[in-house]
């Protein structure tokens, strides 16, 4: 029974990692960029949510919508301002720009909101008892929302026009352009979608862990990145699988081995996977075209 509870705990944090990892994977798939500012969008989402709720006194649903909108817009803005001018430069320049954007967001938020932690209320209070173990409603909501989003995203990428455009750009953006696909719009859309998913993750995160601060996104972002690489970067089902594996391993390590080893285990898994299967669990090994 305890073991089941620990799995559920792992699924909860794993679902949040998975939502963030989806954005990493989509962006990498399309522009081959490791967007390290992605983790910090979760911080922006949380602060927008907090600002809407406690400073403007808005209803929770309205604050959530505003948070998603602001994050999506910010994702597009970052792409337009920081990444687009560098699209044809060496990949290392893009990577360093991404790290710069990440620090910019963190320090801006320290300046605007001060480094003091803030508390957010839980939108889904209450508990459910299942077979003797008690689960918070927010845990169930987190897992359910993540599952729905993942299914929705898969359907969208497979069946809609925009999804097809995304896949085409990710395979070969030059050819996609020749086929009449607007590459710039597709890339903007991908950034907006990824950042919007992070905003959803930030809402779920705030409901469970309540405390937000300007640097909250950095560790979370790195773990989500590990999840994306573990599952196979560029692969959407891989990002989901990676997030959940990381979450469950983290929870089980804390519960049965040692809480101090949890991070070591997470990064240890990454090293092992990279040694055995460099393209990740569900990643395709693609040879660089010459």
């Amino acid at each position, binding site marked *: 029974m*305890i073991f089941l509870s620990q799995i559920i705990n*792992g699924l909860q944090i794993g679902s949040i990692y998975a939502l963030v990892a989806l954005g990493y994977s989509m962006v990498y798939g399309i522009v081959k960029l490791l967007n390290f500012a992605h983790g910090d969008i979760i911080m922006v989402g949380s602060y927008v949510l907090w600002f809407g709720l406690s400073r403007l006194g808005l209803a929770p649903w309205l604050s959530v919508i505003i948070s998603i909108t602001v994050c999506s817009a910010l994702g597009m803005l970052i792409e337009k301002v920081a990444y687009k001018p560098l699209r044809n430069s060496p990949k290392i320049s893009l990577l360093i720009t991404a790290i710069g954007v990440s620090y910019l967001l963190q320090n801006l938020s320290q300046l605007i909101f001060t480094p*003091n932690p803030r*508390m957010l*209320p839980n939108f889904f209070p209450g508990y459910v008892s299942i077979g003797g173990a*008690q689960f918070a409603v*927010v845990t169930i909501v987190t897992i359910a929302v993540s599952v729905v989003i993942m299914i929705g995203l898969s359907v969208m990428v497979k069946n809609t026009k925009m999804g097809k455009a995304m896949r085409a750009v990710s395979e070969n953006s030059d050819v996609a352009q020749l086929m009449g696909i607007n590459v710039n719009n597709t890339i903007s859309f991908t950034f907006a979608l990824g950042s919007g998913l992070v905003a959803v993750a930030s809402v779920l995160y705030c409901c469970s862990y309540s405390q937000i601060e300007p640097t909250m996104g950095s560790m979370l972002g790195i773990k989500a990145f590990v999840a994306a690489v573990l599952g196979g970067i560029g692969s959407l089902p891989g990002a989901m699988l990676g997030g959940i594996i990381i979450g469950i391993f983290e929870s089980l390590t804390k519960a049965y081995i040692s*809480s101090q080893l949890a*991070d070591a285990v997470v990064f240890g898994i990454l090293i092992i996977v990279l040694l055995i299967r460099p393209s990740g669990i569900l990643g395709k090994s693609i040879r660089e075209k010459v």
Partner: protein
Amino acid sequence: MKKRLIAVILAVAMVFTLASCKKADSGNIKIGLITPMTGEVAVYGMAVKNAVELYINAFNDAGGIDGRKIDLIVYDDKGDATESVNAYQKLVTSDEVVAIIGAVTSTPTLAVMQASVSDNIPMITPTATHPDVTSYGKNAFRACYTDDVQAISCANFAKTGLEAKTAAIIYGSEDPYSTGLKEVFEAKCEENGIQIVAVEGYSASDVDYKSQLTNIIAKKPEVLFVPDYYNTVYTVAKQARELGYEGEFLGVDGVDGVLAIEGADVSYLDGLYFSNHYATDTDSQAVKDFIDAFQKKYNEVPNALAALGYDAADILVQAVALAVADGVKMEAGKECYQAIIDKIATIKLDGVTGNITFDADHNTQKTCTIITVINGEYKSIGSY
């Protein structure tokens, strides 16, 4: 001839410089304060800063030391050891203060106290309860009790106040404050016949305690000891209640301020007890005067950290006044430092947080007040 003239002029100039040194001694006296004004423990830092300023402003308004005022120089350490040592270096080398109040939380204070040994500058921490704070040199004092005292009080309260048979502990395994308290509490519980059914640790960056709490709740402890600061205690209490924990929470002085968290849901804090340095609902005149003055100025009830900050400022300023009365020159340097240290050791204060005298190790011996949270308000329930 010309050379001789220059020599004479220089000699005269030197005499004047010396004289101006003498003159400076009648000026204001500089005291430093290192406190976290931003970051995780800002609520503590601001409380200490407000209380120290309250005391020193009142002291200056009443005439200071024979008309000489106290200048307080404040630096923010964000509760971080490196920042704290930087602040210390600035106070000693560029501001040339004669004594320092600080730091506030245990981890930065340990760092600052170690850095201060070679300078031998008088240091008094209002609030750092870690046993080692005063162990490095003879220049360090504290206005609060040590962690050993409060961990023992908590264990005694668990036995006689809560009549618990079983207890569990969740603590920050990288934090000296938390681990020190955990060890003493564990030992004292064993002595008191309370069975410790589970001990779980977490690391500093953790926000998810559910794995550890799930293990703890499965052992059904009557009391959960959480030796950490208010933000963590709040998050632990919230997650424990969500996982179905029904016992009591027991915390230490770090819990003070938990009701000041913006946006906190106080219903998670029902059944929370913690040891503290003073209670606001007492009959003592000193406490009442302090609360009145503090409320008038800052429009809030002072927490225990504020009370300790006030007492620490009181002790230090009195010691400086005694040193001045003995004719000690108030300029930063070994002699001035040592004179103030000697005076602090002799101080006997009937302060806001009780009677304070220093033992040979420069610690105070006081009793702990146990406080509980009921419907979002603190209520003291006696000394243990």
